């Protein structure tokens, strides 16, 4: 075989074969990667948040903080109970509201409201927040995550759909806004 110097027919075909498989590999890799990245691209394009009704305003008496639950707007048939999300609704003075995510701003554990001491406490690492969601003590670096809200036809609506985490762009923006 190697008696013939230079490129043999077989060598050429082998290299062409490898090259062909390389091209096919790239052709296949594009849809595979796009498939894998779909949770990210979906977020970039349409976003996950939408306006969700939490219930009638009467459910949230003035000056009190109540637990509310909603069905996440982005669901799949296999979600079961995991798509039911809780949040804390604070009726500040009958007119303005604050809606806090259930997730602690430290590591996402569910915070609990204690009306007697007007504190939110986290059972995981002991983060505590005042009634307006600002940080009181413990490891959290910031206050509770807050959803945008609006009132429409006697109902309270919030803009939600994504689990809030410390690294989320919208939360970082909000944090800067509250700092200023």
């Amino acid at each position, binding site marked *: 075989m190697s008696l013939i110097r230079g490129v043999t027919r077989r060598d050429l075909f082998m290299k062409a074969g490898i090259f062909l498989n390389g091209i096919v590999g790239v052709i296949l890799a594009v849809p595979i990667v796009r498939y894998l990245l779909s949770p990210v691209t979906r977020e970039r394009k349409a976003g996950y948040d939408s306006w969700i009704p939490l219930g009638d305003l009467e459910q949230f008496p003035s000056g009190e903080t109540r637990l509310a639950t909603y069905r996440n707007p982005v669901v799949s*048939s*296999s979600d079961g109970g995991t798509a039911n999300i809780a949040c804390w609704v604070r009726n500040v003075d009958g007119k303005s509201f604050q809606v806090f995510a259930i997730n602690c701003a430290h590591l996402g554990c569910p915070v*609990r409201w204690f009306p007697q001491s007007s*504190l939110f406490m986290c059972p995981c690492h002991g983060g505590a927040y005042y009634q307006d969601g600002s940080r009181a003590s413990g490891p959290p670096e910031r206050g509770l995550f807050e959803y945008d809200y609006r009132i429409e036809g006697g109902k309270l609506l919030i803009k939600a759909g994504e689990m809030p985490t410390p690294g989320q762009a919208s939360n970082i923006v909000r944090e800067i806004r509250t700092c200023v």
Partner: protein
Amino acid sequence: MRLIKSIGEWLDARLQLGTSIRETMEHPVPRETASWFYVFGSAAFVVFMLQIVTGIMLALVYVPSAGEAWNSLQTLNHDVALGWFIRGLHGWGSNFMVAIVLIHMVQVFLFGAYKYPRELTWIVGVFLLLVTLGMAFTGQVLRFDQDAYWGLGIGASIASRVPFMGHSIVNLMLGGPIIAGTTLSRFFALHVFVVPGLLIAFVAVHLLMVLKLGINEWPMPGRVVRKATYTKEYHELTQKDGLPFVPGAIWKDLFFAAFILLSIAACAAYFGPFGPSGPPDPTIIQTAPRPDFFFLWLYAVLSFLPPSMETPALLIGPVVGIIALLLLPFVFGEGEKSWRRRPIAVLTILLVAVALGTFTRLAGNAPWSPVMDAWSAIPIPPEFLHNRSALERQGALIFQDKQCHNCHSLGDQGGKRGPDLDAVAVRLTQDQLIRQVIQGGGNMPAYGKNLSPAETTALVAFLETLHPAGQSPARDASRAIALGPEAGASPVTRR
């Protein structure tokens, strides 16, 4: 007998594996390595086999769907004959596997086995440790209960802190905007296909290198590893004073593997399976999520790190740790193998073991977490209420009602988040108590907006009674001078 032999010969004539298998089994190993210290690697492998078998069994019933998984675990526990035992085997097998892999790693480290020419064996071993921990974490997720749900939330919160890409990583990890169906499906794929695939591949390379390079000889003080001479010296050692792996050394591996399997079975039978705890419904917020045993230390570290240090420590710490482990055989590839001549190596192990042990133990009772129901479920011990005035007892009531007890203990009952208050009156004067209650500080929330002046007075009156019988409460000496001797004596009642 003759039939079996002829079938064997027929197979070998076609497979042609007999010779190489026999050579592998009978390859000579240094005499001292036929030791009880050299059984952990094979034990980890055997436990991995158990995990594969029990894992397949569980997959026969388990439903990897967020809406169904928890119910299918209940079915396994209660409706399938011995389903609870198989779950127990798999759960305890997981704990044993992590433990044995860690012990194996410590033994290899102390015996200098990572040195030339076994650097790559060590590096693959580091990957095996990471992959084993990956199996433990993804497995904890598949036990889809409250702990799994909020554990995922913690994982997402940590991942979200990666600069620039954090948010995308969270979406990728969860398979969507929230912890839901797609999240469990992808963790199922990771736990059942991806990570075990990696594990099998790494184990194969790891074992191949152990066979090719030979098992590490028993380290002798003074027998120094030099790249130029090591291979020749090792060869002489095995040839002159070696013995065949089978049966010379393997019987100890077999005995230990059987002992470990029996221990796992005993734990599974006696303690039963792990969980599941409450259903993974995030609207049930009366929960205090806890990680599994091997991640408890991390849970403790996360509560102790100062807020400003947390993100860098979480993101940089693991990278530095893994790089240090990977670089170890290149930096210390030659020299003494014996732990008797490597005091820093021994101290490192002790330091890491004591640190991990302490953090794990602390995480067992989690003093940093408020006891969420202490204010309503744990009464103030009677001795703190005997012979108290009405005002002081009113203060005790406020102490309970304002959830002070959730973070502060009295008579060792209640939260440990803040300091215990058994003798707080000795530490703080009246003014200091008032200031602390109203303004908070030192990691305590301020209660100024939430306590009326009357409530503050009553609460501080109660706190001032908290001192040992023979010890008087702290007093501000200047007060007596400024307001007269009566003011210093009992300021609260005078007001």
